[in-house]
């Protein structure tokens, strides 16, 4: 987090961060109004009203999909069955290429997340929660372990929290490396000790989740927003934003920029503002060719889209997704086919292999892109890529992995088609003339 004036009123997620980059432990967190929201909630607010407050605040899921959090929570409450056993899961399996926000929140200000989880558990009548942390985040694991212990010692976790009848136990679970674990239902399977294959929906986790019990899965950043909403109210939270999406968002720019980083900004800040004012523009001698708004699974945009406000609605209007809102800048010297080859190799490697379009389609895309990169492409390759984009698109596969994978590809084909055409081998350009015989299988 780079140094900018951060105050509680405008930067609810990051104002507590220390300039020396060290972790804010419980003592310092408490001095900076930490756990005040929890005290307030347990004394003054009944659980149903917390759900209503979150609903009214307009908080949307910060994991990338942007599903309204209050709505997700209210689905849990609708399910009156098995009120005695239900779960809250924090999705801390951050592995989207180009995304580095949850790591910051966990490592630097872990108690904000823990307080958010306790509040969510109180609102949803949950007595056990899990933090599903990515296995590679070793530093984050140490920080969370220590923080959970601190919270237990201060009476914020365990039985009869703050003298109430509310009990909540928090368990840290670390993964073992697979991108698909970040998918809500695959995460649940992984938590149950199975291969992380997604589950079919419906039933949704709110009805049938972890071990068949009602389960709510929220991202780290989403849960970190909860304490400040409870403490300062809905109107304040809505006014933070410059657009119809409420609150602030951790946004950033990485790639070929002078000052890559992550900043807490109001929704509706334009990408140009982030790129120029915060990331200090492109590196000397390079120009912006394309950018992805929020992770490897979002459509590329060009310089023409830099003035679009960064929020869920505006970014989708120009044909991409806000995703995690951590943008990546591609410079003019980068070949888009090589870049796509890298991105699709990642998605191919991380396919869980459950459904055929994803398991077979992604390696096929990788093979074509490799040929195009080496200028050995076939005349029909671009057409095949376009067909694959349709056949791996939304609704054709079991989960959102493949549809996410083809988003950068379809947008690159739209904006940078000539670079793909450059990869077609001259030898195959006139392939029609090489076919002999009346029938194709008659040699």
């Amino acid at each position, binding site marked *: 987090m780079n140094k900018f004036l951060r105050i509680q009123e405008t930067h609810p997620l990051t104002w507590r961060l220390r300039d020396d980059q060290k972790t804010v432990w419980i003592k310092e967190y408490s001095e900076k109004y930490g756990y005040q929201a929890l005290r307030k909630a347990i004394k003054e607010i009944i659980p149903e009203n917390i759900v209503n407050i979150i609903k009214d605040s307009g908080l949307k899921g910060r994991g990338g999909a942007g599903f309204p959090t209050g709505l997700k929570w209210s689905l849990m409450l609708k399910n009156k069955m098995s009120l005695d056993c239900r779960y809250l899961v924090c999705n801390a399996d951050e592995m989207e290429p180009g995304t580095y926000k949850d790591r910051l929140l966990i490592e630097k200000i872990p108690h904000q997340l823990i307080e958010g989880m306790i509040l969510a558990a109180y609102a949803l009548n949950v007595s056990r929660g899990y933090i599903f942390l990515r296995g590679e985040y070793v530093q984050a694991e140490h920080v969370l372990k220590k923080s959970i212990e601190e919270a237990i010692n201060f009476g914020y976790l365990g039985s009869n929290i703050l003298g109430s009848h509310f009990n909540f136990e928090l368990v840290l679970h*670390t993964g073992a490396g697979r991108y698909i674990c970040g998918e809500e239902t695959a995460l649940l399977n992984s938590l149950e000790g199975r291969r992380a294959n997604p589950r079919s929906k419906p039933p949704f986790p709110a009805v049938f989740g972890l071990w068949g019990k009602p389960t709510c899965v929220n991202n780290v950043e989403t849960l970190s927003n909860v304490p400040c909403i409870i403490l300062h109210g809905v109107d304040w939270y809505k006014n933070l934003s410059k657009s119809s999406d409420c609150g602030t968002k951790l946004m950033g720019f*990485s*790639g*070929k920029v002078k000052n890559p980083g992550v900043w807490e900004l109001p929704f509706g800040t334009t990408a140009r503002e982030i790129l120029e004012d915060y990331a200090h523009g492109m590196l000397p001698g390079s120009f912006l060719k394309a950018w992805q708004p929020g992770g490897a699974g979002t459509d590329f945009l060009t310089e023409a889209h830099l003035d679009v406000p960064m929020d869920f609605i505006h970014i989708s209007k120009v044909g991409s997704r806000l995703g995690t809102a951590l943008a*990546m800048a591609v410079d003019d010297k980068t070949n888009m086919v090589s870049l796509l080859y890298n991105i699709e190799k990642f998605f191919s490697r991380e396919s869980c292999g459950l459904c055929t379009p994803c398991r077979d389609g992604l390696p096929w895309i990788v093979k074509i892109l490799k040929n195009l990169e080496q200028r050995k492409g076939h005349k029909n390759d671009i057409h095949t890529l376009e067909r694959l984009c349709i056949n791996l698109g939304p609704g054709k596969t079991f989960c959102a992995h493949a549809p996410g994978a083809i988003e950068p590809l379809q947008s690159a084909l739209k904006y940078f088609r000539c670079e793909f055409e450059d990869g077609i081998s001259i030898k195959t350009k006139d392939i029609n003339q090489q076919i002999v015989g009346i029938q194709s299988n008659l040699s």
Partner: protein
Amino acid sequence: MSLKFQLTNEEINEIEKHKKYYENFRAVSIEALKIVQKKRGWVSDQAINAIAEILQINSIEVEGVATFYSQIFRQPVGRNIIRYCDSVVCFLTGYINIQIALQDHLKIKKGQTTKDNRFTLLPVCCLGNCDKSPTIMINEDTYSFLTPESIPCLLESYK
């Protein structure tokens, strides 16, 4: 005659400790694999059977889990695991030169182990350090803003 494979008491205690956090024993399988691997570097067939026994599930199911997750090794590896991030931001900032420097210095390719068993080289998905790329992980330590020139000196500190 080979001795029967046995988990150490320490390993068993650690696995047993985790059982109480979940509704059933199966959920401990990933953690159990990690516990065993931490002590032995990798997970052998016999270790799979031993874990299956302690968790009271089929060994095929433990095997299914062990082969799914990238951090579980089913073959021996070196004493130090180097994971270089090969995702898109590190691609832009030049992970390929880091990979080449690592390969040249260690005289191995990705997925291989050096002859002296000192290092194993593996790619890894985005390490969430994109604002400090290119980045690699050696065992549990993360290194950022790397240059190919910094590699030999960095590796020297790992014996």
